[in-house]
């Protein structure tokens, strides 16, 4: 397993030695690499999940699930309650980026996820009753529950545990272990290197075009 620093330095070395060895400046800013790392990990994560979906396996890499505790706010006017998303999850079919939400005191009985596109369609149908269970759906940056779970009749829930499929680097320091599976590391490095070298090539091409015009 690697940290953000280990991967960034490895990318820096590789870039300097092999890809852009003729460039005068053989050092690229580490801050830039770390930003690219974050973007690359999220991109590859989504590709990884999409490929497993294609193969017929509906699953997400569990090491990328981050757990948050969120406070529940009542919206009594609409007889529902909501939480504000602590991070934006990956966009996956049936909103699987939000992997599970459960009351803090009932981790093994999660609320029922309802795909956002279904919630308006199934109003008035039998399934809307959800067999007396409580569901949730995403709308913008909020997750709404189908009932006001802060009420005593619905369990007097004040906070819930949310598992999101996301690489939230605001929670991970430069020397903390990255929440990615080991087999993804090589792909991430390759992706960042491609992004860096691509940018360089484009810049050199632009400069040569400008010098020809002059």
């Amino acid at each position: 397993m690697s940290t953000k620093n280990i991967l960034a330095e490895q990318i820096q070395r590789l870039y300097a030695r092999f890809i852009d060895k003729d460039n005068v400046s053989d050092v690229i800013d580490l801050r830039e690499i770390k930003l690219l790392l974050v973007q690359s990990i999220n991109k590859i994560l989504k590709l990884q999940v999409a490929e497993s979906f294609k193969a017929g396996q509906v699953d997400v890499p569990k090491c990328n699930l981050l757990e948050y505790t969120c406070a529940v706010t009542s919206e009594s006017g609409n007889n529902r309650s909501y939480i504000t998303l602590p991070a934006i999850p990956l966009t996956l079919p049936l909103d699987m980026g939000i992997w599970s939400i459960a009351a803090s005191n009932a981790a093994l009985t999660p609320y029922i996820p309802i795909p956002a596109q279904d919630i308006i369609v199934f109003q008035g149908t039998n399934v809307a009753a959800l067999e007396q269970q409580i569901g949730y759906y995403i709308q913008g940056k909020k997750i709404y529950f189908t009932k006001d779970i802060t009420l005593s009749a619905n369990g007097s829930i004040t906070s819930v545990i949310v598992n999101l499929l996301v690489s939230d680097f605001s929670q991970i320091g430069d020397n903390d272990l990255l929440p990615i599976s080991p087999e993804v590391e090589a792909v991430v490095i390759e992706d960042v290197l491609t992004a860096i070298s691509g940018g360089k090539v484009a810049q050199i091409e632009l400069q040569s075009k400008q010098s020809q015009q002059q």
Partner: protein
Amino acid sequence: MKTKSLNTIVREALLDNNLPLHYYSRYLHHGLRIVDELSMDFDMGNIKMIELDVTSYQRAILPADFVDFIDVSAKHGERLLPMERERTLNKNYNYDESGNKIPFISGLSVNYDAEINYNLISGSNNMNTRGELVGRYYGRKRAPKLTFDIDTKNSEIVFSNGMILSKVTLTYITSAVSRSSANLVTPYATDVVVSYINMMAAKAENSTLGKYQLLKQDFDNARRKFRARMNAMDYAEIIGSIRNGIYGSLKN
């Protein structure tokens, strides 16, 4: 009585297909659809019995969850004697001069009829406790005067003018699906519900025709098994049925 919750059946279907909880609501929708459909043909706990008041204008108001009737009966001791349906009864309202609803004037008077006892299902000597004509009247076409029909337009039961009862007992079919409580079904239905869910999920996912047809075959077979289990008839029942028939033979 042992029952199984639809919630459990849907979760079992998800496990069968290695799917996460995110598919729950769509699977539940298919589950509810098939339970609703099965309840139209089988007793899935959706057969209700209710006592209705007969109004001053010879009608009874149907319950809001009424789908179809099984029988309308008159109470006779510990038994319920089914009344006959007469499709020619006038379903239009009849009004008096003040605009109040009143029963139609009967073209037939029951007072002079010598056959009043059996015609009115009153439990006479010519009738057994199940309301069947017996003795020298056995096999005779009944001409009951205490009849009913269903007025679907006004959601009422219409009674003939000979109606003398103040209450009737209605046995009727409603949907087995409840929205106010968790749905429970007989364990016999598990397989047919799961196979329907699988079939509909494959259809929604644009699966290949071959896969869909296999799942449809699974569903048809499961439904066949379910029908056989729900309508089981054992040896004793068959014998009993034949013996009843012999017992009630014609007498001259």
